[in-house]
């Protein structure tokens, strides 16, 4: 397989030039524009620098993978992009608007209308069935698909009325994906969706994500510490110690079944 390194670590908050972006993507609209994003956790005596100035752009319909060792700041970055968290410093723009300037209400509206989130530990509501977990989102979205349709997309049409406790880990994660996509989000953010799963189950989950990306054209960003999954992505963003180490573009993307684990 061929990989081309198009960018190296960015040291300052200077804007990324368009020269680093391939033609195919340059035609697409920019969805996220993050500049100098810094996150510091103040733990009293020590300060934890989770992000140390990250500049990043994500584009319409793009499939990116955020790769890095545990503790490198992946979740922190994804949470900030998803409007779950705010950076200590720096700016994040989503399409026309500035997320970092939004208040709590603004962020809630943003999450509600634009973002689909998938968590490592599924975070399904145990007292709701698969369908109801999805309905949780369709209830509050302006233009949702039906819960049945969303579950069908992840191959769980026959498990609609099962409670999370009656589903395997992979099935639960696919319910979580259905829940994330049911609102027809503009962006799908997945934090280690296969982290708690074995390979076969992981593949099913990745297939569901890929399908959403292809069929709905949802801008997708998947966190993983598993380098193999990077082969699915158009771009692989390497994060180390709170900084972007490199961004690698894949000329060809592989399907989940073809990944070499």
């Amino acid at each position: 397989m061929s990989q081309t390194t198009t960018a190296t670590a960015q040291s300052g908050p200077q804007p990324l030039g368009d020269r680093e972006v391939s033609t195919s993507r340059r035609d697409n609209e920019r969805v996220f524009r993050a500049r100098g994003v810094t996150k510091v956790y103040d733990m009293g005596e020590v300060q934890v620098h989770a992000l140390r100035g990250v500049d990043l752009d994500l584009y319409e319909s793009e499939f990116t993978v955020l790769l890095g060792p545990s503790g490198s700041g992946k979740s922190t970055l994804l949470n900030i992009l998803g409007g779950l968290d705010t950076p200590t410093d720096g700016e994040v723009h989503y399409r026309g608007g500035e997320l970092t300037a939004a208040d709590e209400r603004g962020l809630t509206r943003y999450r509600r209308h634009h973002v689909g989130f998938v968590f490592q530990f599924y975070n399904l509501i145990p007292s709701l069935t698969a369908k109801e977990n999805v309905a949780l989102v369709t209830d509050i979205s302006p233009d949702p698909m039906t819960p049945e349709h969303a579950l069908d997309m992840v191959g769980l049409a026959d498990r609609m009325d099962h409670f999370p406790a009656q589903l395997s880990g992979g099935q639960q994660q696919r319910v979580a994906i259905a829940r994330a996509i049911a609102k027809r989000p503009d962006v799908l953010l997945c934090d280690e969706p296969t982290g708690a799963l074995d390979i076969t189950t992981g593949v099913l989950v990745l297939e569901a994500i890929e399908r959403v990306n292809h069929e709905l054209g949802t801008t997708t960003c998947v966190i993983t510490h598993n380098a193999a999954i990077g082969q699915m992505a158009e771009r692989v963003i390497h994060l180390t110690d709170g900084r972007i180490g490199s961004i690698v573009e894949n000329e060809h993307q592989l399907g989940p079944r073809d990944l070499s684990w």
Partner: protein
Amino acid sequence: MRAIHRKLLRDLWQIKGQAFAIAAVIGVGVAMFITYFSTFVSLERTRDTYYDRYRMADVFAMAKRAPNHLAPRLAEIAGVSGVRTRVVADVTLDVEGATEPITGRLVSIPEARQPMINDLVLLQGRYLEPGRRDEVLVSEGFALAREIGPGDSVTAVINGRRRELDIVGVALSPEYVYTIRPGDLMPDDARFGIFWMAHEPLAAAFDMEGGFNDVVLRTMPGAQEDEVIARVDSLLEPYGGLGAMPRSLQISAWYLDNELNQLKGFGMITPMIFLAVAAFLLNVVLTRIVSVQREQIAALKALGYSNREVGFHYSAWSLLISASGSVAGVFLGRWLGLGMIGMYNDYFRFPFLAYQLSPDVVTGALLISVGAAIAGAFSSVRVAVALPPAEAMRPEPPARFRTTLMERLGLGKLLSPATRMVMRNLEKRPFRTFASVAGVAASGGLLVIGLFFLDAIDLLLDSQFYVAQRQDVTVSFVEPRSAQALHEVHRLPGVIHAEALRAVPVRLRAGHRTRQTSITGLEGDARLQRIVGSDLQARELPPNGLMMTEVLAKILGIQRGQEVTLEVLEGTRPVRRAVVVDLVDEFMGTQIYMNVDALRDLMREGGILSGAYLQIDQRFQNELYEQLKNIPAVAGVALKSAALDAFNQQMDETMGIFIFFNILFASIITIGVVYNAARIALSERSRELASLRVLGFSRGEISSILLGELAAVMLLALPLGMLAGYGFAALMVSSFDNELFRFPLAVSSRTYATSVLVVLASATLSGLAVRRRLDHLDLVEVLKTRE
């Protein structure tokens, strides 16, 4: 239904046991509120309508004999809108089927029916027919107790002549809603009845032609009642006026007011205890729920639910529990209120006493229960709202434990590992431990206060009927008699011992404070009627000077050793001064005593007496009664046995129900608190306990860790509860401290023991329920779940 609402219902169903326990506590609180306030409102409205419609007098006054031409002058007093003069006299009655003498109060009414002050409600039969001099209307209470009515007759001994009175109707009057013979503890409908009789024959029978001895007045709205009373007093003064009093001191009105105040007091305090406990339970449960559902909250927020929606979701838990409790409480309260009104219908005589549950009362109850729900939910909802979604994705850090106080003191070696775990858990959450202890203590306290009523009444009975009144019969004369009368009484059949009683009506004056009462003169070496303080010891009457109850001293604002002015309201109405030599803390009334010889000296009279106390030989009882009924000089005969019967009957009717509900409700609190504490502990520690089971601990051993915590809570709570009970009792005693009677603050060991047993039994029940769950702990399931 929206998915989030489904979540709410399913989650609630998961904790249904706890939710039910809390709803029950709220339900009881709401029920108490509804019961007391709906009864209060029903009673108050009924009273107000009754007083208004039947023209209840505002001022009441008695005199020896005033001429009729005084009536217009009374009516002319500024602020007076109406006057009704009448003749009122107590007589001894001879009623078929009753051997003992009965007191009848004859009240004169116009011959022809007309609207009047203290008007009559004719329930049965007809009004008097003009010219028929022996017709009377009888009060409903007496008619029911004696099973008599129109067509029957009673014999009254009027001024020494026996006279048949023909009953033509049964009636009620607003001045006799509560019909109690002066000096009695409890109403006794079978032995005290009111008879309304035409004015002219009644006046004739008592040598009152052209005059009256009783007057009732209505005042205009905004009238200066004090000035009216002063004017009435000065007009009646030359005619043996006994001092006018406002409606608020009229005996029936006073009892009714007192009852209403009590209802309001109970209605305020008891529901608060229950709702405070409920708020605490909601707080504990919701805090736990929010902590367990941390990640669910984060997910909801990540999915786009706003803080408000999340906040509402968790408030709704509390509101739903409280709403279901409240609805049940409203129905329970209505039912209890109906029962209570039923009880009052036997106790108070109203022409109509309908139970009414007004929307205001229901609204009030719902508001306070919503208040409790909000108070209970507040802190945990705030946590849920403030929870940063990114933060909540990560598991909660393990709780920090520290060694317990005992261990820090170096006593750790004394504790077994299980005990150590119990202690650390209790110390880790001091607020919760404290609140659990407080909740159980509150229920213990409620039990104590409920049962304490029995103790207080027992003691009151003892003091009144066995220590103070050792006479069997008290005879009072129509007019004070000479010393010779005592010998005559002594010679009556069956009389073993007789002691003189001299009662002198006076107006006491100390500075600007005054009080009408009568001085009781007792023999210096009295063996029958004695003066008894709250220690149940008979007090010796000083040879000279006055001895009064502390209540009276407080009313007059005087102390031992000070002088008071006595304006005597009979005979030549002399004005004297006397020193208050001693005070006594009697349970009842505003008595003032004096050695009978000193009193006679003060009055400058000979061996005059107004009545006598008799100790009798029961074998001659009927003979004695028969004679007493026919002695013209005898105005009234009070029997101790009858008073005791009336008292006991009243208590039997009400106390049993009262205590049943008290125990039931207090148990609900205990169960609510203990069961919730245990369930929360189980939820928090099931992983730990399951791990111990896997390590080889037996079921018994792990349940001893969990139940040990409950035991420790009980150990702390029980003494505190008993203390709180004593405190509540003291509070109750001081709130009951009115002029007529007060309760002794003596909580028996029986009360404490019963309370402790009931609390322990409720706790054991809750413990067993949790123990069952613990025994069925699914080890695999518990250990599999991510904490």
